[in-house]
């Protein structure tokens, strides 16, 4: 497989053209996503995150601008959109709302079946995906509607994983889950990224959720990407982040407040553990 990348050039998106209630949801987005990156896309509600991710697999068409996947313009007449959709797997917000089959295993097989794979391959991929998401064998033949919220969500994610996309995009995958369910899913994504080197784009409006996992962070505000960089760098802009209604993770906030009070803490800690050891070092050596 050659080098994968997604490139957006001057992409705009306007909802409701010609209805009198137009909404400029994306404004001149320029962005490049490289192979194997683990990206966090943050922004408050209505900033355009969901719109942006739907553009990436061609579900909606940009009102202006171009998108390149592996160097090919996806708006080219000859470009195969269905192929793109199998390469860029998109897990929608509340994906459990799209379950429809009689059993869990049948539902997961829907995606790979649509790819036209042989039955054996379909089953193999589905079992693998369910195993990855931690759905036990005892649940394979039950109706997905009888599962708990967290289990349903994992089945739905398995449905996309079974298609083995090159890029996995997840729109608020942990919204409405309890802390345990949240950590489980985020940990699963981390493992998926580390083991299979698959590109992951994780959408969230919570900084705490993504700070720990991602290598690169994009912050959106009002349809624009306002910050782009490593989490530690992005969190230096606490004022700006607060203005966009996001703020920084609690662990980063504590460090910033201690510094303001005169503590000379070194480094750019992001997670609670990193912050704790930074504070420990400061207390010990100062």
């Amino acid at each position, binding site marked *: 497989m050659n080098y994968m990348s997604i490139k957006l050039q001057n992409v705009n998106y306007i909802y409701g053209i010609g209805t009198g209630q137009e909404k400029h949801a994306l404004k001149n987005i320029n962005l490049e996503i490289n192979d194997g990156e683990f990206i966090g896309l943050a922004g408050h509600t209505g900033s355009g995150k969901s719109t942006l991710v739907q553009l990436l697999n061609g*579900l909606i068409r940009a009102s202006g601008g171009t998108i390149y996947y592996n160097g090919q313009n996806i708006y080219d007449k000859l470009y195969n959109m*269905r192929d793109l959709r199998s390469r860029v797997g998109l897990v*929608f917000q509340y994906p459990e*709302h*799209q379950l*429809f089959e009689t059993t869990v295993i049948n539902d997961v097989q*829907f995606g790979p079946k*649509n790819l036209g794979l042989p039955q054996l391959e379909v089953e193999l991929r589905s079992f693998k995906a369910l195993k990855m998401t931690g759905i036990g064998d005892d649940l394979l033949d039950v109706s997905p509607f009888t599962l708990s919220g967290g289990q349903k969500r994992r089945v739905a994610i398995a449905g996309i994983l079974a298609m083995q996309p090159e890029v996995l995009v997840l729109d608020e995958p942990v919204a409405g889950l309890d802390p345990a369910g949240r950590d489980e899913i985020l940990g699963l994504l981390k493992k998926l990224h580390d083991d299979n080197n698959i590109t992951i784009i994780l959408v969230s409006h919570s900084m705490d959720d993504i700070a720990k996992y991602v290598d690169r962070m994009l912050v959106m505000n009002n349809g624009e990407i306002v910050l782009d960089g490593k989490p530690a760098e992005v969190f230096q802009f606490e004022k700006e982040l607060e203005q966009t209604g996001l703020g920084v993770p609690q662990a980063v906030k504590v460090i910033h407040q201690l510094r303001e009070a005169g503590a000379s803490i070194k480094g750019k800690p992001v997670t609670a553990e990193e912050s704790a050891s930074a504070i420990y070092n400061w207390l010990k050596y100062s």
Partner: protein
Amino acid sequence: MLRDITIGQYYPAESAIHRLDPRVKVVATFIYIISLFCFKQLSGYIIAALFFLCMVKLSRVPFKFITRGIKPIIFMLIFTAALNLLWTSGENVLIKAGFITITAEGVKKMVFMALRLVFLIIGSSLMTLTTTPNQLTDAIESLFKPLNKVKVPVHEIAMMMSIALRFIPILVEETDKIMKAQLARGADFESGNVIQRIKSMVPIFIPLFVSAARRANDLALAMDARCYHGGEGRTKMKPLKYKKKDIAAYLVMLCYICLIIAAGRILPV
């Protein structure tokens, strides 16, 4: 994808028509529709069209929104036009080919009938474009209140109507979302024969029904939690009250209907 549906679509604007009491608009639309059947000659059509154009101008709704309402009925329009054209007998035969006879009377009837249908549709669209669904149900509840006396549950019917109207855009949005989610899983809604296409709808309909049931359940609970108990003794936050401009609007409608009837008696064509 599904956003072309125009039922109950509201066009927000600041205009004299938007500000009218919704009851006036419902009654006026009713009068307008009746008026369409009060004349037979060309002059009536001209008056009805001019009157309508004035109202559109007053409402500040762009004309293309009004005509958009015709799109869904275009098939019906063609069908009735064809029926009128072929089945009207008359003396002035224009074309005669086999069993098909087209007469001048048929052409005239076709044109007039089609015009009537178009006026009827765009007349009612003007009402829904300038009145929010909530105002509309308020108006209907208020206008049909007398039926309470004969044990028709007017409030409950109006409530059901407003809930249904409220849910149309939500369900349309939901359908759109589910469709996209299944497309992302490689679903194909466009190719194959009729049976395959119907089958391909299953992954849309099941989640849609599940979600509609869930929403209905939530709504019922929320209404219960707020002690909703039907129409009896219930007061309105914004009770409908006629103002001077509403009376004026009724007078305008009265003048219009008189004019149409008079034109029908006096004018030769």
